């Protein structure tokens, strides 16, 4: 049934019902007709019986055993098949059998059995006299006549014909009718199937119908409407999405292209920068070597001039030619001055080239002071000055570069003599005990013309004297103080000056009594000053990759870092360094920028550019001033060479475990401004990291959280305001206190804006170290 199409099912169903109904009607009709027929037969039998009884009663009344009874009359009635008359004694008197019929006349049954017989075609009747006397019994048996049978057959045939005709009609009607009902459903099914197959939601069921099917069709169509609308929307959305995807694709392509271009440009820039830096370095080397050569070339003839002048002067003195001796003395002085100039220039060029070296030796300070006094006393006496030496006899020995100390003191003495007339020049030495090493202070105090603030400001700068006219009046190259200051700083000391115009000046040389034996490239190696690794247990020791072409540095740093609890890998070239970085995935890289082959800048760029190494912090070591370049290329921090091992280990520990102790993040693009802040922080021993703009700062922030941020507002790339915006979007950075350090004119609106986000606003170069410390210290302590 299930496989039968719905319309056939419906047709069959209707036909079945019709058939059943007709069959019932037909059966009813048939039974009714049979009943009618039977009744008719009975009636006729009764009529024949009545007629026959009348005559029989008369006959039997006359003769109870008469046998010639008129049964022949029954031949007229085709219905009677047999008849018999029995006497009161139940003797058969007469009988009639229709010719051709094979009926048998029965005996008289008992009354009870007669009553039980329900054969309508058989009649047993008692013949009684009008007075009621029992005369005999009549038996009649009827049968269907030919006509009856024909009539009955006709009836049956007619009924059958009606039945069939009705059934056919019912089928045709059902077939036609079902179309009315099934068509919408079939169409619904077809449409539904087609929708399912073709996913074409545009088709609709066009048939209409009433009732639930109508509702179904309407709902289905409505559903299709909705689906179509949704599908259309979906298609549109998909098209839009594909469009967007395409656009994203294009954008990605462009981005990639841009990235490639950028990379190429960065590489180009890096190459240019490196080239520029190399060129500059080469130029500087060339300059130094030129100066060294020139001064040598100049000195050779000058030697001759000085030497022969001295000989001639001696000869003149021997000859008693005072005038010639005086003239030759002038030549000699001029030549010696020239020699001094040349020597100063040579010194400065050596310092600038980083070639000035220290020769440390043990010496008695008083001896050096006496030497200096001996040399300088003619100069001091020249302008009527008095010389005083104040040196405690127990000042003891020093370990320093005696030649340079002598040169510094001579320079100061010579300056003091030049700018003091009829005054006093005091040379005062003091030993100041200190924790690590005693400090030796040698002060040159004069009562000369002194200097004002502005003159003091440019005092120690090369080629700049306190006054431009000074040179002509007092002579000198203006290099002496610059050289002296450099010498002092090389020995981890300094020269300071205090001066009051028209009262006098005090220049103080401060040097460690024991100038540390300076390793050529690594300093601060004393083990107590090394910061230990934050993860020192075996198995969790961080790995440090050191890339430096100087084998001494490699060996020494590796040794120091191992002592501090690190595993180390060393690489002597950039190529090897990159290979090690990729293979070993060190936790941190220490990178010297001056490398043969591919240089440190390229290594840094490649490390930052490679997915697998981009997150490794890099500490850059440089002998130059390329701090900005290193930071902008992504260095985690920059340390100057010679490497200070104590600072290096502290930096490594901080890079690896930044949360262990807070640090100050300085975001400032201007080198000088940054330097000022850094110096202040260094004085206070604050840890710090520096970034040149907001972007670089965010890179640092992502790796480690600072205790406080010092933020400049005006910067290239991402400025301070943009940086604050981004910071505001990250709740985890929201609590970091921010101090704005800016030279900008801050408007009222800006101030209102900043007030909600920063803890303080400092005006550049108008704040003190104390101001800064007051802000930073509590932030780093919490």
């Amino acid at each position, binding site marked *: 049934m299930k496989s039968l199409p719905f319309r056939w099912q419906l047709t069959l169903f209707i036909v079945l019902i019709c058939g059943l109904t007709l069959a019932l009607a037909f059966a009813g009709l048939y039974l009714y007709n049979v009943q009618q027929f039977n009744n008719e037969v009975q009636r006729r039998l009764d009529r024949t019986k009545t007629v026959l009884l009348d005559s029989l009663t008369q006959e039997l009344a006359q003769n109870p055993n008469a046998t010639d009874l008129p049964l022949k009359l029954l031949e007229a009635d085709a219905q009677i098949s047999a008849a018999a008359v029995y006497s009161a004694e139940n003797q058969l008197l007469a009988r009639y059998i229709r010719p051709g019929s094979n009926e048998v006349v029965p005996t008289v049954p008992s009354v009870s059995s007669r009553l039980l017989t329900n054969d309508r075609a058989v009649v047993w009747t008692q013949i009684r006299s009008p007075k009621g006397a029992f005369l005999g019994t009549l038996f009649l048996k009827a049968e269907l006549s030919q006509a009856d049978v024909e009539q009955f057959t006709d009836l049956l045939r007619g009924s059958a014909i009606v039945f069939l005709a009705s059934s056919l009609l019912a089928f045709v009607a059902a077939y036609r009718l079902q179309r009315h009902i099934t068509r919408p459903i079939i169409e619904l099914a077809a449409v539904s199937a087609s929708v399912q197959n073709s996913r074409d939601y545009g088709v609709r069921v066009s048939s209409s119908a009433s009732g639930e099917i109508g509702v179904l069709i309407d709902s289905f169509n409505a559903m299709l409407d909705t689906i179509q609308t949704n599908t259309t929307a979906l298609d549109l959305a998909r098209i839009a999405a594909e469009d967007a995807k395409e656009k994203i694709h294009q954008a990605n392509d462009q981005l990639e292209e841009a990235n490639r271009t950028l990379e190429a440009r960065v590489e180009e820039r890096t190459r240019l920068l490196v080239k520029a830096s190399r060129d500059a370095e080469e130029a500087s080397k060339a300059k130094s070597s030129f100066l060294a050569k020139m001064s040598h070339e100049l*000195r050779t003839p000058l030697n001759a001039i000085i*030497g022969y002048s001295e000989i001639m002067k001696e000869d003149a003195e021997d000859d008693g030619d005072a005038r010639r001796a005086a003239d030759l003395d002038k030549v000699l002085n001029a030549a010696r001055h020239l020699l001094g100039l040349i020597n100063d220039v040579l010194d400065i060029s050596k310092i600038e080239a980083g070639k000035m070296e220290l020769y440390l030796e043990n010496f008695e300070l008083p001896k050096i002071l006496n030497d200096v006094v001996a040399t300088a006393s003619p100069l001091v006496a020249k302008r009527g000055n008095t010389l005083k030496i104040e040196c405690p006899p127990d000042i003891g020995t020093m370990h320093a570069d005696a030649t340079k100390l002598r040169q510094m003191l001579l320079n100061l003495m010579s300056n003091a003599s030049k700018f003091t007339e009829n005054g006093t020049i005091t040379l005062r030495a003091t030993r100041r005990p200190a924790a690590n090493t005693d400090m030796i202070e040698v002060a040159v105090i004069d009562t000369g013309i002194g200097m004002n603030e502005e003159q003091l400001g440019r005092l120690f700068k090369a080629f700049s004297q306190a006054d431009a006219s000074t040179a002509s009046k007092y002579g000198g190259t203006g290099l002496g103080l610059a050289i002296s200051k450099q010498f002092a700083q090389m020995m981890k000391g300094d020269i300071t000056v205090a001066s009051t115009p028209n009262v006098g000046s005090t220049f103080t040389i401060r040097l460690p009594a024991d100038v540390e034996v300076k390793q050529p490239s690594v300093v601060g190696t004393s083990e107590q000053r090394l910061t230990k690794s934050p993860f020192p247990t075996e198995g969790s020791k961080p790995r440090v990759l050191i890339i430096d072409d100087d084998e001494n540095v490699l060996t020494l740093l590796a040794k120091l870092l191992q002592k501090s609890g690190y595993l180390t890998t060393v690489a002597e070239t950039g190529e090897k360094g990159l290979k090690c970085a990729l293979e070993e995935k060190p936790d941190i890289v220490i990178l010297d920028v001056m490398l043969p082959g591919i240089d440190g800048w390229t290594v840094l760029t490649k490390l930052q550019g490679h997915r697998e190494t981009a997150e490794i912090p890099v500490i850059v070591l440089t002998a130059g001033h390329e701090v900005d370049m290193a930071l902008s290329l992504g260095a985690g921090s920059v340390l100057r060479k010679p490497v200070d091992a104590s600072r290096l280990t502290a930096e490594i520990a901080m890079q690896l475990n930044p949360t262990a102790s807070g640090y100050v993040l300085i975001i400032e693009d201007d080198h000088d401004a940054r330097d000022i802040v850094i110096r202040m922080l260094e004085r206070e021993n604050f840890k710090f990291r520096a970034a040149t703009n907001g972007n670089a700062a965010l890179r640092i922030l992502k790796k480690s959280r600072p205790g406080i941020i010092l933020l400049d507002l005006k910067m290239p790339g991402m400025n301070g305001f943009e940086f604050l915006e981004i910071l505001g979007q990250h709740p985890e950075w929201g609590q970091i206190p921010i101090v704005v350090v800016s030279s900008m004119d801050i408007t009222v609106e800006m101030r209102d804006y900043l007030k909600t986000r920063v803890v303080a606003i400092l005006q550049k170069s108008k704040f003190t170290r104390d101001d800064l410390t007051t802000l930073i210290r509590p932030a780093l302590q919490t």
Partner: protein
Amino acid sequence: MPRILLVEDNEMNRDMLSRRLEKRGYTLSIAVDGGVGVALARSEKPDLILMDMSLPVIDGWEATKQLKADPDTKQIPIIALTAHAMDSDRQKAIDAGCDDFDTKPVELTRLLGKIEELLKKFPPKA
């Protein structure tokens, strides 16, 4: 009179220094390069040697090393003469075994002081 061996390749320097030292009573031998210097030191056994460092044939440092390695000459005091502020040269000179050094151009008073000091320390045998 103390005998001084001056090893100096520059003619003018040689001339000036020798004239001025002779004037002060020293007897001078002259060598124009390191090779001659070593040979003269061995043959003449001077009381003191003034040794320029940048010399042809063999340089001053090498010459000093050879002389200081030779038991016959090692007691002769040697003053190295180096160019001004060439600290590395000076250090190398000390390392090579020179007893003192002075810079060129020579400041005669200072050099004479150093010569006398060394002669006192290593008095001439004769």
